[in-house]
């Protein structure tokens, strides 16, 4: 941990990722730049995905990389062993009961973290992801809502183009109603005039017929009147004679 602060302080002098690359291929995270005097850079660069690598659960990898060019692979281990033996032998570090507790606690912690660290981190990440997904959903819903509102407005604008049909229908109706009235009036005049002329003609016809009938009746009546009783008797006798003659003729015929 301390080395990391040192590194970041060193990087603060020349804040750029290029310098961080000098520290060797082991550096995985981007160095965060604290208190450079500029206002905070937004957006804040994303947090590193994984914690820094450590060896033996305690000592960061950067230390080993730092010593690698000079002492090779075994360098840090030798240094560590030497230092520990030196402190113990010179009693710079005194073994007390605390040592036992320290060793067991630290060993337990390292073991627990190594075994369960990954799954706990995954669980925490999942919780985070759910939160973010919820926010994302809200954002998408708002965007969709706004988009729908825009589309609706556009549709309304399109409809405005068609407003004139309403008034066209009304005007058509008015024109048609007027035309219909006019034509009906024409037809009515024609019908009335024709009616009157036809009436005259039919009245004439009727009068003529009536006159004819009346004349016939009158002539008949007069003729009947003029036949006096004497003439009637003579006419009837003549008719009977004619009938007898005809009867004789008729009798003669079928015999043949």
């Amino acid at each position, binding site marked *: 941990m301390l080395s990391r602060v040192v590194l970041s302080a060193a990087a603060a002098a020349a804040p750029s990722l290029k310098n961080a690359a000098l520290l060797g291929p082991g550096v995985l995270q981007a160095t965060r730049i604290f208190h450079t005097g500029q206002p905070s850079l*937004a*957006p*804040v*660069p*994303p947090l590193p995905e994984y914690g820094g690598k450590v060896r033996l659960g305690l000592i960061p990898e950067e230390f080993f990389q730092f010593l690698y060019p000079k002492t090779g692979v075994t360098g840090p281990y030798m240094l560590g062993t030497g230092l520990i033996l030196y402190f113990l032998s010179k009693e710079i570090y005194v073994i007390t009961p605390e040592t036992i507790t320290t060793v067991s606690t630290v060993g337990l912690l390292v073991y627990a973290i190594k075994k369960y660290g990954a799954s706990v981190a995954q669980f925490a990440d999942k919780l*985070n992801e759910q939160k*973010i997904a919820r*926010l*994302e959903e809200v*954002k998408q819903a*708002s*965007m969709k809502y*706004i*988009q729908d*509102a*825009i589309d609706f*407005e*556009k549709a*309304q*604008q399109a*409809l*405005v183009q*068609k*407003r*004139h*049909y*309403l*008034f*066209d*229908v*009304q*005007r*058509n*109706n*008015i*024109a*048609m*109603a*007027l*035309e*219909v*009235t*006019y*034509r*009906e*009036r*024409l*037809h009515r*005049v*024609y*019908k009335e*005039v*024709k009616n*009157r*002329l036809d009436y*005259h*003609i039919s009245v*004439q016809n009727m009068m003529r017929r009536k006159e004819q009938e009346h004349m016939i009746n009158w002539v008949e009546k007069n003729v009947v009147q003029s036949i006096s009783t004497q003439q009637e008797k003579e006419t009837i006798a003549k008719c009977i004679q004619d009938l007898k003659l005809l009867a004789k003729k008729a009798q003669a015929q079928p015999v043949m």
Partner: protein
Amino acid sequence: MAGRKLALKTIDWVAFGEIIPRNQKTIANSLKSWNEILTSRLATLPEAPPAIDWAYYKANVAKAGLVDDFEKKFNALKIPVPEDKFTALVDAEEKDDVKSCAEFLSLSKTRIEEYERQLEKLRNIIPFDQMTIDDLNEAFPETKLDNTKYPYWPHQPIESL
């Protein structure tokens, strides 16, 4: 009594149906049915009535001069074209409507611009996993917790949690 040419505009009934709001559907339907009634009546009435056969009447009507008199009066008669008081009203209404439509259009345009601006703002926010709480408050001001109104945690009415 010459026949007149009717200037009827062709109507797109689909569009007519689209622009009617829901609560005026009955009026629109009555307009449509009137249109249909009138077209059918117009179709049944021929443009001019048949001509009267004056020669026949002149030959057959005994009264002298009656037919001539009728003929003269008939030809002199001019049937008044029914006057059109209503097209002017419709035109006035249409002008008003055009004005209100223009107003609506401009309002609608401003609304669309507003919506577009909001959409742009939403599209340009940084991804959520790189935000801090301050960034969130900037992007969505409604998430900002009011420390003066609710000085004690959780800084928002408890019922809304």
